[in-house]
């Protein structure tokens, strides 16, 4: 369904992704974890071509791309295979909750307006926001905005859903709600790639977990292996730090 | 892709640059069109605008008389402020300009002047009724002259005087000085004199009836049309017609009509003392 092979990314002289290989099967949920600055968000953004990889191959739903020679049309086709949920929600500020969802359906998918609205309403209902469909983003709370963001991404009916730390900008008491929604979607058999800090969530939702550090995949495998019994020293250190964190916060 | 962008920019620019089609240099009946720049700083009775904002006055009636006698040309009148008009004549945009232009050597270097003036302008110092010690520019070096414009014929006379005489006349410069304001300054004693065309003063005096008089006539300036330097033929033809118009009485009649005085005949009667151009 989704394969990344030998993907490199440079910012100037800085080598931020050092030959990443990843494969996600149909209906699988992949979580990417790792310390900040490890390159996990960059990797996710490369999958949607929001960042241009320096070299390597990408394939989503039979759309194959080689970063060395790629056309605008190919990028556009590749993007249509996936849909992204952003850390900062990134709702269109000049559109209502409903319009945020219909926009992509009408423009990119050429769906008639009435049909698009029907689809949008059903997804809004799924994330529990039917009654706020006419609200503009600035009138919604962070949690509500992220629900619209998720609904917007799902409505595009993509082959793969990409989540970029979807809960890290939210208040702690909201995080659980959003994670529950994502879990729900996972159960429906959606293929997903999730970059997250929520180790417990990653463990329970994922079929596969990738641990990244310093631009490399250090370890990948079943959540129980990577997150509970890691084999690599770097992974162990990371997990230890994560578990200690609450002491610092309180 | 970049090429397409640049092309797009070029197209937009060229659309901007084109806009409308040019008017032909010749009229439908084969007459050559002469662009005459007319000074928008109107100064009746030489020049003023009528109710349709068309130029009229002595200047225009003179040019219309010339145009009638030169069937090969058709004069077109274009308003513009004097400086702009002169730049335009220099740049070849207009064929000639009219606005009681005075002549001086520097200007003759830049523009073509015809030999014969189409009229005269008397300049003088306007003073308070009770002032008797101001008759010429020499009397003004220790007095206060009301503000004068930076450009125009009056200014040139003052500049030339100041270049050749020491001490100079202290000048205050104002763009488009208000004649009314200046005359009232003299009446109330805030200034000692206004340097003005006598005809202008008389016309204002008719309305305002101020306690003022002409202290002394400074100069009697011949006034000219100015041409683009390479329009010698046109200048020659117009010069010829102007002479005819003076001889057959057309211009003296016009002068009588607009100024109430025939400045062509009375030339000798007016005492031309004080400063004069070489």
């Amino acid at each position, binding site marked *: 369904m989704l394969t990344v092979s030998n993907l490199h990314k440079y910012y100037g002289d800085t080598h931020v992704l050092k030959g990443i290989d990843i494969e996600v099967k149909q209906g699988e949920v992949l979580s990417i974890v790792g310390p900040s600055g490890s390159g996990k968000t960059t990797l996710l953004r490369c999958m949607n071509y929001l960042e241009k990889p320096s070299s390597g191959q990408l394939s989503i739903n039979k759309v194959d791309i080689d970063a060395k020679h790629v056309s605008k049309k190919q990028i556009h086709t590749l993007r249509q295979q996936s849909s992204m949920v952003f850390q900062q929600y990134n709702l269109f*500020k*000049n559109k209502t909750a409903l319009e945020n969802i219909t926009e992509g359906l009408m423009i990119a998918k050429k769906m008639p307006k009435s049909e698009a609205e029907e689809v949008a309403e059903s997804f809004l209902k799924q994330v529990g926001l039917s009654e706020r469909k006419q609200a503009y983003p600035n009138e919604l709370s962070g949690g509500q905005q992220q629900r619209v963001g998720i609904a917007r991404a799902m409505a595009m009916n993509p082959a793969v859903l990409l989540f970029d730390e979807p809960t890290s900008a939210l208040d702690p008491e909201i995080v659980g709600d959003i994670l529950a929604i994502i879990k729900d979607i996972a159960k429906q058999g959606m293929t997903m790639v999730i970059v997250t800090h929520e180790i417990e969530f990653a463990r329970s939702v994922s079929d596969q977990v990738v641990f990244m550090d310093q631009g490399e995949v250090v370890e990948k495998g079943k959540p129980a292996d990577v997150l509970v019994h890691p084999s690599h020293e770097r992974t162990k250190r990371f997990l230890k730090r994560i578990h200690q964190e609450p002491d610092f916060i309180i | 892709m970049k090429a397409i962008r*640049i092309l797009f920019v070029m197209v*937009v620019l060229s659309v901007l640059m084109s806009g409308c089609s040019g008017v032909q240099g010749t009229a439908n009946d084969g007459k050559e069109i002469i662009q005459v*720049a007319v000074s928008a700083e109107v100064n009746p009775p030489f020049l003023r605008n009528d109710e349709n904002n068309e130029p009229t006055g002595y200047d225009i009636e003179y040019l219309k008389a010339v145009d009638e006698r030169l069937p090969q040309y058709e004069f077109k009148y274009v308003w513009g402020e004097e400086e702009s008009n002169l730049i335009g004549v220099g740049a070849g945009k207009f064929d000639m300009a009219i606005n009681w232009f005075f002549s001086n050597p520097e200007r003759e270097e830049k523009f073509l002047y015809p030999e014969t003036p189409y009229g005269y302008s008397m300049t003088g110092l306007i003073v308070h009724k009770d002032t008797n010690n101001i008759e010429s520019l020499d009397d003004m070096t220790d007095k206060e002259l009301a503000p004068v414009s930076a450009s125009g014929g009056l200014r040139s006379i003052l500049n030339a005087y100041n270049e050749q005489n020491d001490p100079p006349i202290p000048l205050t410069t104002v763009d488009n000085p208000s004649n*009314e304001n200046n005359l009232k300054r003299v009446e109330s004693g805030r200034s000692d004199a206004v340097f003005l065309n006598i005809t202008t003063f008389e016309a204002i005096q008719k309305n305002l009836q101020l306690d003022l008089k002409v202290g002394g006539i400074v100069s009697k300036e011949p006034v000219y049309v100015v041409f683009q330097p390479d329009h010698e033929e046109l200048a020659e033809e117009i010069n010829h017609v102007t002479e005819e118009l003076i001889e057959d009485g057309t211009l003296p009649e016009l002068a009588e009509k607009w100024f109430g005085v025939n400045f062509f005949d009375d030339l000798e009667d007016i005492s031309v003392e004080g400063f004069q151009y070489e």
Partner: protein
Amino acid sequence: MTFGLSDWINILGQVLDRLPLTLAMLVVSLIFAMLIGIVIAFIRIEKIPVLHQLATVYLSFTRSTPLIVQLFLVYFGIPQLLLTFGIDINHWSRFVFVVITFSLHTGAYLSEVFRSSYLSVGKEQLEAAYSVGMTYPQALRRILIPQAFRVALPNVGNHTIELLKDTALAFTIGIIDIMGQVKLILGNNYGVGMFQIYVAIAVVYWIICILIELVILWIERSQRKKHAGISN
């Protein structure tokens, strides 16, 4: 000399007769200025080689020299320049020349307004548009421009008012606008009543300016709800 009421009505009537011309200069120049502004902003945002440097010089010159100098350059300089290539545009209407001058002048300012408002919208909005499958032109039209428009609006309003006042310069090359009519009236009066007439013309400009402000306010209000969040 004092003016009676009928004199004032007469003077005001003459001046207001020229109002359509002033407004025509304003509107036509503004439209072209917006086009120029968009093109220049585009060139500067995309950093198109050569054109980008040319645009910078153009901006610097237009913004640092008096408008009257620019008017003379366009009215006298460009025709002479083109004449050396055998193109004669001297007989074009003066209206065209003032419109070119004002468009180039205001366009320089508007390009900066457009550029900064475009940049203020932020990359995230574009990314969001990409992530729902839009192409760049689609994102531009549906998401970026509507948001940038709202940011740009107050500044566009300010430059429209500046342009209105600048149109008074058109009389220099003989276009009789409302200011020109005032000068002609004064010339025919030998400058009598200058102070009063200038106060009157000031009020006329002021009223037009307030009307422009009201239009901008009205557009802003009609957009407000959608965009209240942009200021956050």
